[in-house]
């Protein structure tokens, strides 16, 4: 026995002292012990600093892979009893012992007897060494003493070696952590950071599954190691259970065996056994968790429980990760803010340019074209197509007035290229907008579609909803559409679009509908916000335009009304004259009739009869005079004929109405013969006649029914007829007079206009006749009317010579 001991000791001292390489050292010890004691197996377990785990560091007779993987948690197993009591234990039948703990898959179940002693270094127990045999055996005191001796002698070296290994372990961990720290600080990309973190955790621990979850803007994202796409199903219960718990409590969790952990009941089928999960916290904000799990996929693979040491390592890793993740988040937020700022600046500059071009737009059509251009152009808001609607309160509809958008994808691409080219050549947005030819826009199918759309304000379509709620409506899919929307979308040819209302003074004046038919870019809330910001000045500009429009129309009406009123005044004068006339006539008639009757009835004798007759004659004369005067009165003023420049009269009338004509888009062509001799006319009356003809022509052409180009031609020349004089031709493109109206046009009080007095043409004719002239009319249906007035010079016809 003593020989054995000596040999062993000698071997030991030669082995252990020089190298202090723990695994080798322990291996040798185990081998020697097995041989010396003729056992089937020997195992050496060492205790960690926290005294929480006993790790199998070396063995003979057990499976080689078991080393470092078998960890006995505190108080699990007979070995722990040995540690606690610091006394050797010898059991013939280990299984019978109450402290017996069978480590699954360790292969220990084939052994029946065991003998173990504590490894004491000084007064501290640093581990356990024990032997096992398959056959039951009673260990002798000597054997126990020998083992004890071995343990004592080796303790110092083991301790030192263990110390070194632990230190090496620490160093390795620190350098891994350092490396990780360096890597994560070199990048802002969250995915990369997560990758580095879990790779470090993998290196440091021996967990076979490492996962890191980070919380990003309240939507959890998962990163895995080894890299897996998506979220492996097997981890879902873990995520829902443990991760949620850790996120909420902000405390780490270490689970040795999930199956036996009641706190995480209900996790369902879980394929992991041991879990270590740490929260990633920085300054009270939970950025995420890092979770390590050991995956018992192999049928008889070992699974490791996590040690305290590993837990604190993970804690360190989590801290570094926290810094990096937070930094990355902050950087990203900053970049986002910068981007937003840039976008805002760009928006402002667009709005600025737009407002300039809007101010320069002269009329409503130009304005609308400018607005929609800005909405669609790439440098502007960049929508593919835009359609403008205006509210028509009278009809209760939302009327499409303009649509800006290419008809096909190719057109779109070509247009955009054109625009970009022009703009890169230095023409700014404003120039480009102003140079656009509005007619070019109107020729597209899209514009035709827009003009054809007339949506009832009672319908439940997106544009009407936008108007009613005064807020944008974004139709992203069929799910967002009402029944009527589907019809509308079909007409539009696009199933994703958005509508914003144009609001001025809390009133919806119209709406803009946009879509991205060609590049199918989704319309975001931000896009709509920009469009809305842009719509406010648009709505005001439109409203202003409409007011200006209304003002000028009112102005026109006033001018027309003025001249009408002059007419009516004459007529009412005539009306008064009629009452007067009745009186003036009644009296003489009464007298004439009365005396005539008396004569008839013989009421008067000779002398009186002659008297009566005289009176009768007198009254009759009176009546005659009255009639003459009446005619004069109905002619207007007294006939005031003078030599006049006919062309000048025409120019004066043109002067009165040029503005009206300009606003109605009526082209006025004056062809005045330069060598026209003066004519003897009552200028006021002729002017009145011309005014009446002009008003009729302008009104006929202002009718929107016709699509004829609006043109009024007035020409003067010397008469080519028998009687020398002047001829005036006035010709319009108002579509002509309906044949059924033709017989009545010269009747006073006949009119086809809702607010007409009907006197225009009859007065005209009377005036012409008074001047001994002739008026002819050439009516061409579908084209227009031409009046030809011929007036003799009348030089011999002077009543009131100047």
């Amino acid at each position: 026995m003593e020989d054995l001991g000596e040999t062993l000791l000698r071997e030991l001292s030669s082995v252990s002292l020089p190298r202090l390489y723990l695994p080798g050292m322990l291996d040798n010890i185990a081998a020697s012990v097995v041989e010396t004691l003729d056992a089937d197996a020997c195992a050496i377990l060492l205790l960690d600093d926290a005294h929480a785990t006993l790790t199998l560091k070396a063995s003979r007779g057990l499976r080689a892979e078991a080393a470092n993987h078998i960890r006995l948690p505190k108080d699990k197993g007979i070995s722990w009893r040995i540690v606690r009591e610091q006394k050797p234990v010898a059991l013939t039948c280990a299984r019978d012992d109450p402290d017996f703990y069978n480590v699954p898959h360790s292969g220990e179940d084939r052994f029946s007897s065991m003998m173990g002693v504590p490894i004491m270094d000084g007064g501290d127990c640093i581990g356990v060494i024990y032997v096992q045999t398959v056959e039951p055996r009673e260990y002798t005191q000597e054997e126990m003493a020998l083992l004890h001796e071995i343990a004592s002698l080796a303790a110092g070296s083991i301790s030192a070696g263990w110390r070194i290994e632990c230190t090496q372990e620490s160093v390795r961990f620190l350098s891994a952590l350092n490396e990780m720290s360096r890597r994560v600080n070199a990048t802002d990309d969250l995915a990369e950071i997560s990758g580095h973190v879990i790779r470090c955790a993998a290196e440091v621990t021996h967990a076979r599954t490492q996962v890191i979850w980070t919380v990003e803007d309240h939507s959890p994202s998962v990163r895995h190691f080894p890299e897996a796409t998506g979220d492996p199903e097997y981890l879902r219960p873990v995520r829902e259970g443990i991760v949620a718990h850790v996120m909420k409590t902000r405390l780490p969790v270490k689970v040795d065996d999930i199956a036996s952990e009641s706190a995480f009941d209900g996790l369902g089928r879980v394929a992991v056994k041991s879990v270590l999960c740490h929260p990633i916290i920085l300054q009270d904000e939970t950025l995420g968790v890092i979770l390590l799990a050991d995956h018992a996929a192999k049928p008889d693979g070992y699974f490791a429980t996590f040690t305290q040491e590993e837990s604190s390592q993970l804690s360190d890793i989590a801290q570094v990760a926290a810094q990096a993740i937070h930094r990355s988040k902050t950087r990203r937020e900053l970049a986002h803010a910068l981007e937003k700022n840039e976008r805002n600046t760009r928006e402002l500059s667009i709005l600025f340019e737009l407002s300039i071009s809007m101010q320069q737009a002269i009329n409503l059509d130009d304005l609308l074209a400018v607005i929609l251009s800005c909405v669609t152009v790439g440098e502007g808001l960049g929508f593919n197509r835009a359609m403008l609607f205006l509210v028509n309160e009278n009809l209760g509809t939302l009327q499409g007035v303009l649509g800006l958008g290419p008809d096909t994808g190719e057109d779109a691409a070509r247009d955009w290229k054109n625009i970009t080219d022009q703009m890169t050549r230095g023409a700014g947005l404003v120039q480009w907008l102003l140079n656009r030819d509005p007619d070019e826009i109107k020729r597209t199918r899209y514009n035709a579609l827009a003009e054809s759309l007339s949506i009832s304000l009672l319908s439940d379509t997106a544009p009407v909803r936008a108007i009613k709620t005064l807020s944008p409506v974004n139709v992203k899919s069929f799910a967002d559409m009402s029944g009527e929307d589907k019809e509308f979308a079909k007409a539009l040819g696009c199933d994703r679009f958005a509508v914003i209302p144009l609001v001025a003074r809390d009133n919806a004046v119209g709406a803009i509908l946009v879509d991205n038919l060609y590049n199918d870019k989704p319309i975001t809330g931000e896009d709509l916000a920009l469009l809305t910001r842009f719509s406010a000045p648009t709505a005001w500009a439109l409203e202003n335009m409409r007011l200006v429009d209304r003002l000028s129309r009112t102005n026109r009406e006033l001018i027309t009304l003025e001249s009408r009123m002059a007419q009516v005044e004459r007529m009412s004068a005539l009306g008064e004259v009629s009452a007067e006339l009745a009186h003036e006539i009644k009296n003489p008639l009464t007298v004439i009739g009365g005396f005539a009757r008396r004569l008839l009835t013989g009421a008067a004798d000779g002398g009186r009869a002659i008297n009566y007759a005289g009176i009768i004659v007198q009254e009759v004369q009176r009546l005659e005079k009255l009639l003459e005067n009446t005619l004069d009165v109905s002619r207007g003023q007294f006939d005031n004929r003078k030599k006049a420049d006919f062309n000048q009269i025409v120019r004066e009338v043109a002067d009165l109405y040029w503005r009206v004509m300009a606003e109605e888009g009526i082209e006025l062509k004056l062809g005045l013969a330069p060598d026209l001799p003066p004519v003897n006319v009552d200028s006021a009356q002729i002017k009145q006649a011309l005014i009446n003809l002009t008003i009729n022509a302008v009104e006929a052409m202002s009718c929107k029914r016709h699509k004829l180009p609006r043109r009024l031609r007035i020409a003067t020349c010397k008469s080519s007829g028998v009687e020398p004089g002047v001829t005036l031709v006035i010709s319009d493109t108002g579509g002509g007079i309906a044949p059924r109206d033709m017989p009545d046009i010269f009747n006073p009080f006949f009119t086809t206009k809702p607010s007409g007095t009907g006197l225009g043409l009859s007065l005209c004719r009377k005036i012409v006749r008074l001047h001994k002239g002739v008026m002819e009319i050439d009516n061409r249906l579908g084209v227009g009317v031409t009046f030809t007035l011929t007036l003799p010079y009348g030089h011999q016809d002077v009543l009131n010579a100047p």
Partner: protein
Amino acid sequence: MPKTKILVVDDEENIRLLYKEELTDAGYEVDTARDAMDADKKIPIFRPDLITLDIKMPGMDGLEYLRKFREKDKQTPVVLCTAYQDYKKDFKVWASEAYVVKSFNLDHLKATIKEVLEQSAKRKAGETQG
């Protein structure tokens, strides 16, 4: 029996003459006045039983004069006699007893005068009795 007196107020000389002749032939005593002022002078002296009054007169027109007259005299019946039809709608004519539109056939006028006088007499009789 004293004749019933009628004052004819009209600005037309020949009308006055015609009415005078006709009414005289009908048995009335007739005086004429050519306008409101003239009527004012003649009425207190002539004291007519009935007045025929033209509306369209120079100076104060007939309706205005009628109103003034009625302030002082509510008894004497007045027959408005005018070429105008429109005044029938004017409420001022209510102050008169009748409104007659001039015509060369004076029968209607004479009939109206007769009726108005009868009514007036009845009223007077009623008042003295009651």
